[in-house]
């Protein structure tokens, strides 16, 4: 094989192959980076809420200027609740109960108080909260109250307080490290409870406590006071059902839906990444074209030698092999260098992403590696096939 290689390597043009190599490297890098970036960043937008299921919608009445001035009620009457209940898209509906007494809470970390603030509590029937029942449970006499906080609080804490006071940042898993003391003031009674933060929800903009605590505390601190609910939680069969939107529109209700924004952001991310990848693929395709031209030119210049080798008994596969190995090794080098490049760039941007979203799960480089390996296989197969085809055309003297 050495002598064959000695013959066939003649006329290999370094500038042409270098041109292919760098063009392909750049294209591959862009494609792989696009894939990897999408996979890394998409979870930020489509994060699942572990407490409130996707098929739960929170419904409230639209607050308008006219409504506020005219003193129109923003609460749902039992009739209105009944009317929602009977809709075809609705599986079940539950009401938010809000606290009718004054609450304030002090939060801190490792015994150091961070901030104190006035608060309010809300509760929904326990069946709407996806959590193990023993954790989401309160019985009269317990001085620890389980709490689910809005996710915005974690950002407030991480960037507002932890940053400036040198306190550790917390992620979902470390929520229980936050100390929370709840003070209830009502009609001259002052009680203190310990809050245990079970987690953070991005779908409920409220501080959620178990229904049992809410029922007990409302009747204990403000007996006799009842209010109609201003927000409802609704379980639906299909959250994308058009009839939901039509119904809400018709009665002037609003669905709190941060999923929609996330959906849009994911969509734009997809479009941008898709465009970038398209450009990368285009560059890759062009570089592939350069390679094929170079190989064809090389084969053309070496036609006599190839023909002579075939005539003295070399198999077409034997004379094609040096060129096939040449392109395979170049493709492989491109793949490995591109993956290395993606790894370097990724470790840079992942630092930033993780600083902003500490709770996000980090995935590996498998997606980029898979796509890269796939591209490598496709391009290499095409190369191998094209070279063999070219050699066979010499065998059949089609030139």
């Amino acid at each position: 094989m050495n002598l064959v290689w000695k013959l066939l390597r003649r006329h290999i043009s370094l500038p042409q192959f270098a041109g292919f190599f760098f063009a392909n490297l750049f294209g591959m890098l862009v494609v792989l980076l696009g894939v990897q970036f999408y996979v890394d960043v998409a979870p930020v937008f489509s994060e699942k809420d572990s407490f409130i299921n996707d098929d739960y919608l929170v419904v409230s009445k639209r607050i308008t200027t006219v409504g506020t001035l005219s003193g129109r009620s923003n609460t749902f009457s039992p009739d209105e609740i009944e009317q929602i209940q009977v809709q075809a898209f609705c599986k079940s509906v539950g009401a938010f109960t809000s606290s009718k007494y004054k609450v304030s809470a002090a939060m801190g970390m490792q015994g150091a108080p961070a901030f104190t603030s006035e608060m309010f509590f809300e509760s929904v029937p326990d069946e709407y909260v996806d959590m193990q029942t023993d954790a989401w449970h309160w019985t009269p006499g317990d001085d620890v109250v389980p709490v689910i906080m809005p996710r915005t609080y974690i950002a407030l804490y991480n960037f507002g307080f932890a940053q400036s006071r040198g306190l550790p940042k917390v992620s979902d898993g470390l929520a229980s490290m936050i100390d929370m003391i709840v003070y209830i003031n009502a009609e001259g009674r002052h009680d203190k409870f310990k809050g245990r933060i079970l987690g953070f929800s991005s779908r409920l903009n409220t501080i959620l406590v178990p229904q049992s605590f809410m029922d007990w505390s409302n009747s204990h601190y403000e007996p006799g006071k009842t209010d109609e609910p201003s927000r409802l939680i609704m379980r639906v069969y299909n959250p994308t059902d058009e009839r939901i939107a039509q119904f809400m529109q018709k009665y002037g209700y609003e669905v709190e839906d941060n999923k929609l924004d996330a959906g849009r952001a994911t969509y734009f991310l997809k479009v941008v990444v898709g465009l970038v990848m398209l450009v990368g693929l285009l560059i890759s395709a062009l570089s592939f074209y350069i390679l094929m031209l170079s190989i064809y030119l090389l084969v053309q210049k070496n036609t006599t030698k190839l023909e002579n080798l075939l005539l003295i008994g070399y198999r077409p596969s034997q004379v094609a092999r040096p060129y096939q190995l040449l392109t395979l090794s170049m493709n492989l080098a491109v793949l490995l260098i591109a993956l290395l490049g993606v790894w370097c760039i990724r470790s840079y941007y992942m630092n930033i992403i993780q600083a902003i979203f500490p709770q996000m799960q980090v995935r590996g480089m498998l997606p980029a590696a898979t796509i890269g390996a796939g591209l490598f296989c496709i391009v290499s197969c095409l190369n191998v096939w094209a070279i063999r085809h070219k050699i066979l055309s010499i065998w059949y003297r089609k030139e």
Partner: protein
Amino acid sequence: MDTIRLQQVLPRVFQKQPALHSEVWMQDMCFEKGRTYLVEAASGTGKSTLCSYLLGYRRDYTGAIFFDQADISAMNIAAWVQVRQRTISHLFQELRLFPELTAYENVAIKNELTHSKTRDEIGIWFERLGISDKWDAKIGLMSFGQQQRVALMRALVQPFDFILADEPISHLDEHNSRIMGDIMTEEAQRQGAGIIITSIGKHMNLNYDKVLKL
């Protein structure tokens, strides 16, 4: 393979030639293993064409050619590779050597494929043919006569049932063509092979079993 049989074979380019007097074209004839043939012809009568048919790199003929009982038009690439490596050795008129390689490398590139001779055996041929000093010389720098001797050696480093030498001594003197004839005959006899030599006049002095006019 024991026979090469031609059945009414005619190159397509000759189809319009009205009066063709040939002992090969448009005949039923047979080359047999172990015998020596001389095909004599004026230039342009299709000597190299005949060789190219037998080596499978041209197919522009009418009629049929058989290796033993097998019609060669049905042979696939693998079968032709086998023929070129093991059955028919061809000494090309245009030599088809590689000018970038040295004399020895030109022989070795075929020997690497067949592993039929040792380096020493090839060395002895170089000496007998009087070009042992050209062992490491680039083919491009050698005379055509010297190249013909290298091409002969390359043709002999393989097992064969027939050796097809297309004007092998066109550029050689009496002395060297005799040595070449000796080596070729020795090797053919050792393998029990047939020899087919074409010539436009000047030809090796061998004991021909049959002389054919093309």
